[in-house]
């Protein structure tokens, strides 16, 4: 998998979430994704960015245009140095939330994207990346 474009953005305020969303939308349009796919990716970015802010206390978003096997895709990686997730399996369960939300952010994002990876250690932070291929 090669990286064609790589942008690192801060996720420190609620406004940063909007900026990340707009960036993802712009790249998705540039890559020629359909309107439905664009919306899915923008929504996924919104979910993950809000998790980074609300649960991780802020962090970074890395938005990459990647290529593999003659396909191009959009990969987003969100990283924070927050309190981390103790039980990854539980966190991925539909309806489980520690923040009073619907509990669909992580599990829903996995369904919106093609690839999904969640890494976390309690006390060290969380890193979640998701990719959608064209």
């Amino acid at each position, binding site marked *: 998998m090669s990286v064609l474009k790589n942008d690192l953005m801060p996720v420190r305020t*609620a406004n940063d979430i909007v900026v990340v969303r707009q960036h993802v939308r712009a790249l998705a349009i540039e890559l020629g994704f359909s309107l439905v796919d664009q919306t899915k990716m923008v929504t996924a970015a919104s979910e993950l960015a*809000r998790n980074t802010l609300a649960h991780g206390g802020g962090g970074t978003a890395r938005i990459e245009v990647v290529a593999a096997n003659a396909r191009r895709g959009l990969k987003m990686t969100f990283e924070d140095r927050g309190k981390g997730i103790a039980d990854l399996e539980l966190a991925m369960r539909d309806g489980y939330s520690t923040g009073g*939300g619907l509990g669909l952010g992580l599990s829903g994002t996995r*369904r919106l994207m093609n690839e999904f990876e969640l890494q976390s250690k309690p006390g060290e932070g969380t890193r979640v990346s998701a990719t959608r291929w064209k």
Partner: protein
Amino acid sequence: MTPRDTSVLPSVLQKRSGELLDAWIAHQTSADGYRPDLMADAELRDQSRELLASASAAVSAGGLESPTHPSWQATRQLLGSIAESRATAGFAPTATATFVLSLKQPIFEALRKDVQNPERLADELWNATTLIDRLALQTMESTLEARERVIARQHEDMLELSTPVVKLWDGILALPMIGTLDSARTQVVMESLLQRIVETGAEVAIIDITGVPTVDTLVAQHLIKTVTAARLMGADCIISGIRPQIAATIVHLGVDLSEVATKSTLADAFRLALARTGHSLGRAPARERR
């Protein structure tokens, strides 16, 4: 040695003010960034003269000692108004800073004429360069301040852009939502809808999300909460403006909106609302039309 105590800069600025002004103007009108289309020569001359006079007065009053010396007050204000008028005229911030910085060369030349001792000249040049740099930085700061004021005003405008709750028919309210729905604004807007339901005794409220670009779980939760609260108050909610891509995304996210009446367009939602409130809508026979 403390060059500032004995600096000749104040006297040079005063003695050679006319000469300095002419040299400075000549410098500006021959520079790359010269824009006679943005500012008339007479105005440029006025601005240059005022700034030179103000800086000269401040330096004479002891301004070389420190940038926070009270004698700089008037110059600071002048720079502020220059920065603002130039920004309005369409100058780039760098052009405005260059305007101030271009005063360096004329002053250097004047000092070279008046100070013979090379060591002394170096000290005086240092004084002059510190002074001009400070003025240029002040200009930059004023430009940024003016820009920040504009941004702050726009931000306030946007917050005030509250979504109105409109009455469509007896007992039917509509809330056309626009923009990002994950801010504190959403809460305010939703609460105002509940308030209007109480005031009007409306039976049906339509929340139109055609103008909402992203519906994620937080937005969905806001919507569900509002619908539930409205139901507790005896009003039914219909969510309209759900576009195909939003529908697909909501399904994949796993958000359950099956409890809520949804329509793709506001027109469909209105028709449903009319039916629910016992109104019927039909086309009049041709002969009754005028």
